[in-house]
């Protein structure tokens, strides 16, 4: 009888077994930890950078002197411009190299290849995502750097070296460990990211549009260039932005091939340099003074903000495509 009465009570008062409260509290606590983690994350980075922000202000972003030690001639100053410059240059090189590769592969896999070929090919290229960053670093250091130093960079210098503006881009000795090599390694690393997202987006183009053009006698390339790519353009830009965000945050592989030696800003992409991330990785052990510590945390904050901008931009663009697709179906 007791059983029956409790059953009817449950039926009338919805659920809420007392033991449910405990369980709800537990999973609620896990969720709270996650929210607290991200809030604490941002708060801590801001808090620990305040000393550096207060002392150097915008000079941190615009100054190019990175001077951790106080001497008679040089006062302590942390200007991160060379690192920001290195991040921008390597990420752009990566983007310029990776986007055509990824887009060409995505087009082949989605539009040209039969599915028995396209799917495995996409799978193989996307395996690149699973390779740890430090493995790219090892490969970059021992295979790519010598190729760049003895092959590609001298080649660029002999071909572009005498061209007025481009010449400055490849001036100076070919070290092999420089911004260009960093960009090439990054390009390989973001290739699968851009590929898999643009493949998804190309697959979302309504079939009716493609079939309509094919029925009118268009060639496959005309269907691609007039129906598929214009439709997918925003999403592909979004895919490239996601790749850019990845490139900006990438650390180890770049650290191993970029040289980490000069804080000069030079127009030549054959200059050894730093990225923000590689500067953090190289310098955190030396942060003995509070201001040095604060400056390194601020580097992390800047990196987080820049990467977030591209992540959010990417998400907005990709979502817009998905939503339009939903509208077309309805």
């Amino acid at each position, binding site marked *: 009888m007791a059983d029956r009465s409790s059953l009817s009570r449950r039926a009338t008062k919805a659920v809420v*077994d007392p033991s449910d409260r*405990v*369980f709800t509290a537990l*999973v*609620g*606590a*896990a*969720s709270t*930890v*996650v*929210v607290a*983690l*991200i809030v604490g994350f941002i708060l*801590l*980075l801001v808090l620990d950078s305040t000393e550096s922000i207060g002392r150097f202000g915008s000079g941190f972003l615009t100054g190019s002197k990175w001077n951790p030690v106080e001497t008679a001639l040089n006062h302590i100053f942390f200007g991160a411009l060379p690192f920001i410059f290195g991040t921008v240059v390597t990420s752009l090189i990566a983007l310029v190299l990776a986007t055509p*590769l990824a887009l*060409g*592969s995505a*087009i082949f*896999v989605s*539009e*040209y290849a039969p599915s028995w070929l396209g799917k495995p*090919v996409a799978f*193989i*290229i996307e*395996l*690149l995502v699973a*390779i*740890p*960053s*430090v*493995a*790219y*670093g*090892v*490969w970059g250091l*021992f*295979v790519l750097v010598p190729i760049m130093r003895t092959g590609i960079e001298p080649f660029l210098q002999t071909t572009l070296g005498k061209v007025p503006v481009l010449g400055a881009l490849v001036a100076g000795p070919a070290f092999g460990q420089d911004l260009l090599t960093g960009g090439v390694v990054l390009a390989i690393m973001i*290739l699968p990211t851009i*590929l898999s997202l643009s493949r998804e987006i190309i697959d979302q183009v309504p079939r009716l549009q493609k079939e309509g053009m094919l029925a009118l006698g268009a*060639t*496959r*390339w005309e269907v*691609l260039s007039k129906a598929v790519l214009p439709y997918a353009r925003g999403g592909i830009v979004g895919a490239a932005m996601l790749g850019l965000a990845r490139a900006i*945050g*990438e*650390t180890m592989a770049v650290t*191993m091939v970029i040289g980490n030696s000069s804080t000069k800003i030079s127009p030549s992409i054959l200059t050894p340099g730093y990225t923000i*991330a590689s500067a*953090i*990785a190289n310098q*955190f052990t030396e942060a003995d003074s509070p201001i040095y*510590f604060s400056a390194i*945390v601020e*580097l*992390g904050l800047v990196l*987080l903000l820049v*990467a*977030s901008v591209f*992540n959010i931009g990417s998400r907005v663009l990709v979502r817009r495509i998905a939503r339009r697709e939903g509208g077309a179906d309805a």
Partner: protein
Amino acid sequence: MPKDGEERRFLGRRVRGTVNAALAVALTALSVAILFAIVGHIFVNGVGSLNADFFTKIPKPYGEVGGGIAQAIAGTIVMLLVAGLIAIPIGMGTAIYIIEFGRGRFAEVVRFAIELLAELPSIVVGVFIWALLVRNLTGYSGIAGACALAVIMIPIIARSVEEILKLVPDSLREAALALGTPRWKVVLYIVIPTVLPGILTGVMLSLARAAGETAPLLLTALGNTFFNLDLRRPMAAMPLQIFNYAVSPYDDWHRKAWASTLVLIAIVAILSGAVKFFTRRWKHESH
């Protein structure tokens, strides 16, 4: 002859199509070739240095030939286990909350927090744990490294478990609830067992990802050339050992870097391969 011109134009269109198709094929071939080059180089250069010493000895002092990465393998395993102990309950709890209990604004906030966590550059995770724990509390230590890995694993677990829980049909939950089962029993005894292989997949993926992370460990666990299982002291990890071997000036250490990279990639592949195994069995059973 107008017809002739039309034909020529048609031919031009065909040629353009073929050229662009060939271009797409060439770009794809290049992408695939890059992957094979990287994996091939790692295999060929790494396999020669694999021997019993490599797995059982710790690194030799600077410049000496020989030694291995035993301490790094142990460190990676220990930190992955501890990170898993932290990340699995939090990640799963979050996913269960979002899917089974989450209503209204807080669930949205939690979901957004997960997305933000997933997008953090891993070095920034390192900076966070470095500023929070290493500088104030723990110093460079295994526990700090495990915490950094946990931060990276939590969003991966939460997202994949969330996706998998969505697949459980509501009729299953409703049938159990209609019998008067408390919700926690519905979740633990009915929903989760139904999708357990999928959940294990998510956990394996997060472990595979964490096993290869270097930058966050650099700022937290720091690395160690001696055998150490004490979580309060600096701890070695395979990616850190690879980095140290690779940037050293010694040829023998470079060979060790290649070999360790091969082992690391094999571990990541095995963890991800386990994923395939679980998903296949799961799909098989559900049919």
